[in-house]
């Protein structure tokens, strides 16, 4: 890899890291691949981690970061390629092997026992825990480890009483106590305050100064630039590049992270007469608080009839809450939701559906369907209470079957038996049925959350044409997606979410992908 600071590539990685020439990487992956049914999770990935470096691993959701780290920590076994430990091939058939080889990981969601003390958590499942133990010896050992490793913890405190930052320190201590040389951190700052994040960075630098290495998984560009020596960018399961961080900018990283080959297929062309109309659904300064966390922060949006508004952002930045807010599934802590100028903040999901707001939810199997029930039951979910399916209190199964057959025909799903549980259908067919069901009631608005997740290209294409069809009918469509390609091709405007806020709204026509990437990483569009 040619970098700006070293245009000829003559200075070795070792010398730039201040290592003796020929020092092998602490751990390296060579040509690693991992396949799941129908999915390439990783292919042909090379990665070398040298002593003394903080190596950032950057990529969007689904870029293959987690799978790669699961291979490195022995949770998965690679289908191809090899792992080298200090220059020698190693085989990690389980996490125990990886830990023994000095590779430890702190997951994004901590794996601590809340009811145990810090000392007990550190010693849990550890071969070096003495056979005869007392609370006092455990705490003394923990205190000593904490001093040796420079991670201040209160050994006798119960984990449930600790702040998230302190819990993370316990996790790191747990890993380092087992003599880890390579520490993998998955989105470590997502749960930290800025002050806690700074403390973490100091501890990480101290750790690498002792000849160890850190792999730092993140999608926050500013952090990657601040903390790492080198950065590897993954996209679609493959390695895009490994660069010296000092030769990168947030902008260049964003481009590498999201700037895949975008297949331009402009779907914004409209037939004559189909235009963007007046606002139908609006969020007015909406915030949502839950358990002290701000899930949505002062979000204001106007959605116009006949428009497709795309919502971009790394998953988990408030998109789910936004979709719940727009469909009556959540009540704002402050602010209002207006449908056709009427405040509907408190109306609830049923009233919103009856008012013409359709909703393709992000988790089909948990919200969109009842997988154990029949295809008929699932297909008529929005119309079971209306004629001809219902008369007074009665529900007429024969009419339900008729409607189910009609929807399945429109969705082009072959159903051998409508009494069969819906879980027997493929994901693509389930999604088509849900989409068609929702389109029938979406007279005004359709909220589609990650509609193409888990679908193949053909099904995604169908889904996009459904949205075009609705839009041209004058329905407002919100398309929440992590596939920038979809948004760029279809959305009239793209709003980018980060930590529950909208970083900016840009026109979809001729959008600069880098701008989107920067906003996804927390840069506000001014």
């Amino acid at each position, binding site marked *: 890899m040619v970098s700006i600071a070293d245009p000829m590539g003559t200075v070795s990685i070792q010398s730039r890291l201040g290592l003796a020439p020929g020092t092998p990487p602490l751990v390296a992956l060579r040509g690693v691949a991992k396949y799941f049914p129908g999915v390439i999770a990783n292919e042909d990935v090379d990665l070398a981690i040298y002593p003394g470096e903080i190596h950032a691993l950057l990529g969007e959701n689904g870029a293959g970061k987690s799978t790669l780290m699961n291979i490195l920590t022995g949770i998965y076994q690679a289908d191809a390629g090899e792992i080298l430990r200090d220059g020698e091939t190693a085989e990690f058939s389980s996490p125990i092997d990886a830990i023994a080889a000095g590779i430890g990981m702190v997951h994004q969601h901590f794996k601590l026992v809340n009811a145990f003390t810090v000392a007990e958590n550190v010693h849990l499942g550890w071969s070096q825990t003495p056979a005869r133990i007392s609370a006092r010896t455990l705490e003394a050992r923990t205190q000593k480890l904490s001093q040796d490793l420079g991670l201040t913890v209160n050994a006798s405190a119960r984990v449930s009483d600790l702040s998230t930052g302190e819990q993370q320190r316990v996790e790191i201590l747990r890993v380092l106590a087992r003599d880890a040389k390579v520490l993998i951190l998955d989105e470590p700052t997502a749960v930290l305050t800025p002050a806690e994040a700074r403390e973490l960075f100091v501890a990480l630098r101290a750790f690498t100064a002792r000849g160890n290495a850190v792999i730092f998984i993140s999608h926050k560009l500013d952090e990657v630039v601040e903390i790492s020596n080198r950065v590897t960018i993954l996209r679609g399961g493959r390695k895009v590049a490994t660069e010296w961080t000092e030769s990168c900018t947030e902008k260049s990283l964003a481009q590498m992270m999201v700037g895949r080959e975008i297949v331009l297929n402009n779907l914004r062309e409209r037939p004559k007469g189909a235009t963007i109309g007046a606002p139908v659904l609006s969020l007015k300064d909406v915030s949502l608080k839950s358990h002290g966390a701000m899930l949505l922060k002062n979000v204001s949006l106007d959605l116009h009839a006949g428009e497709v508004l795309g919502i971009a952002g790394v998953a988990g930045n408030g998109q789910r809450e936004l979709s719940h807010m727009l469909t009556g599934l959540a009540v704002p802590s402050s602010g209002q939701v207006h449908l056709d100028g009427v405040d509907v903040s408190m109306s609830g999901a049923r009233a919103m559906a009856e008012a013409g707001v359709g909703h393709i939810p992000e988790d089909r199997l*948990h919200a969109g*369907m*009842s997988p154990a*029930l029949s295809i008929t039951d699932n297909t008529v979910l929005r119309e079971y209470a209306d004629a001809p399916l*219902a008369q007074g209190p*009665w*529900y007429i*199964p024969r009419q339900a079957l008729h409607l189910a057959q009609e929807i399945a025909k429109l969705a082009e799903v072959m159903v051998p038996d409508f009494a069969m549980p819906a879980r*027997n259908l493929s994901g693509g067919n389930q999604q088509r049925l849900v989409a068609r069901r929702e389109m029938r009631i979406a007279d005004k608005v359709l909220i589609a959350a990650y509609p193409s997740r888990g679908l193949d290209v053909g099904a995604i294409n169908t889904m996009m044409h459904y949205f075009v069809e609705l839009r041209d009918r004058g329905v407002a469509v919100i398309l929440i997606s992590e596939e920038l390609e979809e948004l760029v091709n279809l959305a009239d405007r793209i709003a980018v979410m980060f930590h529950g806020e909208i970083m900016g709204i840009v026109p979809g026509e001729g959008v600069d992908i880098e701008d989107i990437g920067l906003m996804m990483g927390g840069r506000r569009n001014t």
Partner: protein
Amino acid sequence: MMSYRLQRLPAASPAVAFAARLVSVIAALATAGLILKLAGMEPLALGAKVISSTFGSSFGIADLALLFSPLLYCGLAVAIGMRVGVWNIGAEGQFNLGAFSAAGVGLFVAGPPVLILPLMVLAGMIGGALWILIPTLARAYAGVSELITTLLMNFVATLLVYFVATGPWLDSSGMALATTARLPVAIPEIWDIVHWGLPVALGLAVVLAIAFNYTKWGYEVRIGGSNPGNALYAGMPVRRHLIFVMLLSGALAGLGGVMEVAGTVHRLQGGISNNFGYIGIMVAVLARAAPLGVIVSALFMAVVLNGGIILQPQGLTTQTVLAVTGLILLYAAIGDEFARYRVLRTIQPQD
């Protein structure tokens, strides 16, 4: 080259599923027979005796009907719970409370039977519903699993009935030990000793089948019971349906207790529930929570229980019968799984 392999189907066809059930029941009876044979008994002769004693006389059929009825109430109670995603293990306790409440009204409220009987039915159903109220609220508002709470309430109810029947409500005439006095009113009989409890239960099964399959309410309960997240998404009142169906489940088991104390036993005594509540779980599982299916499975269980009673003089204990019912359940579960497989014969081309 010809080879065989198994293919697992997404769903068993109804005919195969039924055949598998039949085979598993026969296999369970055969297993029990084998064990009896090893214990030195004559299983075939015992089986013949059960059949002739049960179906060979009007006494036998009347006895069978009296076992059938409480199993129907308890089976329906558990089955409708399953429809809303709830395991009501407490039908036993709710049955006891129904019997207790009805007996209380019958013993201590004076009046003409035409007034007292409906009052007893009402009291019994409310008693049963009250007995599941705490588990219901804990489940609906705090997500506490009803499995344990409904089970624990059983012990309280059983002991309460023992206590009043041997203590405060003990028959003062000195004629009877450990029971209350005979209730002054009774559920009218329709044939021999068979009372209205049975036809009412059969009618309820039909009504419930219609309610669950042919009403909007039944559709909502079905969605909410199968996937609450899906029901919330569609804006259905998930919690309201959960609470209502759970209370109805308790009331049905309570009604079973009313019929038992006022129609069959005529006195409140300890152990009046006779494990009907627990066997009701088996009845509901065998019926796959379908109210009309409960009629078939409750009848079958009644034959098995009646067989146990008939065979007691032959040295078989009630435990043996419970073991047989357990075997049937186990084999049915295995049979349900096997029903989803079919054998494929594949012919591979020769090179």
